[in-house]
């Protein structure tokens, strides 16, 4: 068994032998890409990566949309963190083992904000807690983001982000996918087979 304290000291010493003096850090403070029509850009990009953007005026419209959405109407296990929009089919607060989330057919989860340049939505486990697996186990995932929380680019995103109390957060762009078999795109690798982002407002 090796001595980890010694390895640590050795690595740090070895790394510090390269000591070129101060090397300036570039500034990120400049004009990055911005879009005249952010919603259009977000919607086009999300479509490009296999997802769907649905702009709606309010949460009631989200509910109305889902009531005509087959993966929801046919779902046996609905997981919803927005009970005002749709109800979960089980008492999800009582689920202590994430393995019990395996059969989720459709999940509805709020996102903090979205990014136009790459169709990503920032989703954290603030409300999911030990159930973050729900994001990846659900056959179909639907996200709700406020329209005024749509940013142009990733630099703005990181200006907004803070990680205090956020153990897990992910930029989620489209449904899960793979192209590992002869570069043919297949949607629905391990995670959701479809993704809808409702832009509300």
């Amino acid at each position, binding site marked *: *068994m090796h001595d*980890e304290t010694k*390895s*640590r000291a*050795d*690595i*740090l010493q*070895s*790394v510090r*032998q*390269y000591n070129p003096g101060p*090397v*300036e*850090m*570039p500034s*990120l403070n*400049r004009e990055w*890409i911005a879009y005249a029509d952010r919603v259009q850009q977000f919607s086009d990009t999300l479509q490009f*990566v296999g997802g769907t953007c649905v702009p709606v005026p309010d949460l009631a419209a989200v509910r109305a949309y889902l009531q005509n959405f087959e993966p929801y109407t046919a779902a046996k296990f609905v997981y919803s963190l927005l009970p005002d929009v749709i109800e979960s089919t089980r008492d999800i607060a009582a689920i202590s083992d*994430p*393995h019990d989330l*395996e059969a989720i057919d459709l999940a509805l989860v709020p996102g903090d904000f979205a990014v136009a*340049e790459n169709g*990503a939505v920032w989703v954290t486990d603030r409300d999911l*807690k*030990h159930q*973050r*697996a729900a*994001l*990846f*186990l659900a056959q179909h995932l639907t996200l709700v983001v406020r329209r005024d929380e749509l940013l142009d*680019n*990733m*630099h703005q*995103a*990181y200006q907004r*982000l803070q*990680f205090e109390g*956020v*153990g*897990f*957060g*992910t*930029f*989620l*762009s*489209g449904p899960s*996918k*793979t*192209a*590992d*078999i*002869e*570069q*043919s795109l*297949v949607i*629905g*690798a*391990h*995670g959701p087979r479809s993704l809808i982002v409702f832009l509300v407002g």
Partner: protein
Amino acid sequence: MATKHAGAAALFVKNDERAHWHDQALWFVRVKRDRAAQSLPEWETLRETASAIKAHTMSRLGDYLEEFERNAQKLGAHVHWAKDAAEHNEIVLRILQSHGVKKVVKSKSMLTEECHLNPYLERHGMEVVDTDLGERIVQLLKQPPSHIVLPAIHIRKEEIGDLFHEHLHTEAGASDPKYLAEAARQHLREKFMQADAGITGVNFAIAETGGFVVCTNEGNADLGVSLPKLHIACMGIEKFLPKAEHLGVFLRLLARSATGQPVTTYSSHFHGPAPGGELHIVLVDNGRSAILGSDEFRRSLNCIRCGACMNTCPVYRRSGGHSYHATVPGPIGSILSPARDAKKYADLPQACSLCGSCTDVCPVKIDLHHQLLAWRGEIGRRGLLPMSKKLPMLGLAFLLKRPWLYSLAGRVGRWFMPLVPRFLLYNPLNAWGRQRELPKPPRHSFRELYARRNQKPR
């Protein structure tokens, strides 16, 4: 006598149809990368910024390592240090054993490939399942990945159909990617549900916050660590960024360079263990600090493993990843591998036409073809050149150092070459003439023409 790479490449191109298919498949990815890069007016600024951030980070890497450790520990993670592959494997095994782990799911990590973690854990009685579809395919085939982003890029769908028929009991003769991917999804879902621990690689670690980011398209890393309670993240010590805001630059570059996507489907940020879980981060040197000390090759540590240099490389595309007999193939692999073992990988810097295409696409602006050239010199100086390269080089050096001999040889050649029978010119000793015709020698050399021109009255 061909070098190791040239020998393996010759085998690869023997199957003409497959070689062309491979070439085209990768070129297709390169074209997608171009489109994505061109969609951003600030692309070049991003590359320059990324390169400068890395230069700064490397200048203070020791401080950032310590800052990361402090912050990660504050968040409740355990941080481990491993000097080499053996220490890394030992640490991972000990953590797994102390939790009584039998089954592990692993997402893509070139570092664990480099350390040969899988066979090590298997020898200790554990089941290790690679969950990235491409990696699962090569794992079932008992092969190493042939590409760092597209591990199974060298395999045809019919072969995957046969493989899945054998292991996953899909229908015989099936080759529809959708059908096969669905079968893999079901198979791997089961593995996820049964796993006692999840191992991931790390794309970027953030000193300022003590967190790290893992990027996938399949969601396999996330699934693998959100079901079991134990998460082990393995990373090289070069993966650091000082601040979270720097991720903005790197996440914008990574997927666009890799596959032409605007960003990977999941860019997941882990800060501390999951509620009720345990997180271990293993920091691995394994030769990296030595590269950091080298002025010539330091910048190769800036690599973010996007694979763009492979997709664009005319040699890689036509020789396949396995011909590099190294964990990381292609241009960047031909720089990193000799740094680890110059003798074993002496042939790799030669497997390059110095066209510079890799340097043009690299998102962090590594001067790849310069470093490949520098490695050639280094390998020559250390006396590690293979005979097939050494002899002609010696001959050429002798000739070029003697102008009189050079001009004599030229004259003799121009007179002699058209007269000699083919078999004297095109024989096994002339590797250059194997697929090529020699040009017709001109009647007069440049020097002769130049001398005559000067004699002419103006």
